[in-house]
């Protein structure tokens, strides 16, 4: 036991002596370089400021240059990543700028006058049903105002304002299953009712048998519909269904002119609607 005790004392003194030697005597050039190399490999960071000179004493300049180059490389790699993110953001802004410029140009040529609004909220459970815009009663938005969207340099009917609040409004899209628009073909004598189905397609009903309707024809809002201004493009016929034996009219699938669920800005056209239509929104909400 005493032998072990003595041994422990000797070992303790020995290690204290070795540690003190390491502390007191400056490291040789090679030892210091190896140490910096090991510590830098595990923690690649150089100490700057007042401490820097102490840490890199005795280390050859060319080796330090390698470390500095590595540090510079790391900083530049980080900078490249930041710039890549900035480029992506700039591209998005540029795309938005082009889109807004195009839409603004189109709205200037539009006979209908109104206000621009941004789509601020969409409900995933009602994707083809409705969305909210950032304009409300304060901006002069009224219930049943026509909502126009723009896509690929064209204007098209997107829906109408269903609910108006102080600073925002809810828009009922034409694709909503409770929405319907009286449509006609420019120059044709018949009219039909384009009804939303809760999907991206509309269904046009009540087309008289024998009407000259074919795939690819463009439908516009009819003068017979009071809610929407006439002549506004609604959709394009995708498929004409043959007449069923028990019906005396034909139906057709219609694709909206604009992708209503991808709109980012819309143009709200306020119209002086007959007072009888004022309560329509309330009835629909019920």
């Amino acid at each position, binding site marked *: 036991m005493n032998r072990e005790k003595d041994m422990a004392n000797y070992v303790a003194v020995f290690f204290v002596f070795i540690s003190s030697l390491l502390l007191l005597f400056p490291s040789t050039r090679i030892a210091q370089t190896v140490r910096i190399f090991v510590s830098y490999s595990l923690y690649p960071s150089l*100490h700057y400021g007042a401490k820097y000179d102490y840490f890199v004493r005795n280390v050859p300049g060319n080796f330090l240059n390698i470390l500095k180059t590595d540090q510079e490389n790391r900083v530049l790699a980080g900078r490249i990543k930041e710039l890549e993110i900035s480029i992506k953001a700039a591209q998005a802004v540029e795309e938005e700028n082009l889109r807004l410029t195009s839409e603004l140009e189109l709205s200037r040529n539009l006979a209908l006058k109104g206000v621009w609004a941004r789509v601020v909220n969409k409900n995933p459970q009602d994707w083809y049903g409705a969305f909210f815009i950032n304009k409300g009663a304060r901006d002069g938005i009224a219930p049943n105002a026509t909502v126009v969207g723009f896509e690929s340099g064209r204007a098209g009917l997107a829906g109408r304002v269903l609910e108006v609040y102080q600073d925002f409004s809810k828009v009922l899209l034409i694709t909503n299953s409770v929405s319907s628009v009286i449509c006609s073909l420019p120059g044709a004598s018949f009219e039909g009712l384009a009804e939303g189905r809760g999907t991206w397609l509309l269904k046009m009903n009540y087309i008289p048998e024998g009407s000259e309707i074919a795939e690819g024809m463009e439908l516009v809002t009819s003068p017979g519909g009071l809610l929407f201004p006439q002549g506004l493009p609604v959709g394009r016929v995708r498929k004409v269904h043959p007449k069923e034996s028990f019906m005396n009219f034909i139906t057709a699938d219609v694709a909206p002119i604009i992708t209503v669920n991808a709109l980012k800005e819309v143009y709200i056209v306020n119209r002086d609607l007959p007072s009888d239509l004022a309560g329509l929104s309330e009835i629909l909400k019920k």
Partner: protein
Amino acid sequence: MSVIGDILLYFFTGVLYWWWTANLSVFGLAPDLIFTAALAAAIIARPVKALIYCFSFGICLDMLGSNLFGGYALTYTLMAYGIYIMKRHLDLVSPFSQVVAALTLTVVSMLFYQGLSLTLAKINPLQLKAFLVEPFLNALLAPVVFYFFTQLKRRFDLL
């Protein structure tokens, strides 16, 4: 076999410490695994082996850091000797006493190392947040490392 096992344990602890501090630091803070390993080794191992372990762990920390070389080696050697003296008078086997020992010895070793750095290199290595938080983290980890080392001693005759 025991020597190889001891060397493997030393390197495993060093690698784990490096990995933990490099990847699991929260706000730049992590328990000092090397310190708790040195503490556990000092409590469990025979005096000479405990001194060798602590000196080696100190050298490991000195190599990993770029501060005063030999500072941790001296600190941990003295800590091992201190624990060797304390073991005769105090029970350091219970988890509570390990927590208290880790708490106090972390503070003492930090201050000692700070004193060494200021005296010999005029460098202040101590960060306030580390000084305030690390003792508690070490105190929490110490019983776990002690248990692990005890199992190693029982099953593989290490330490």
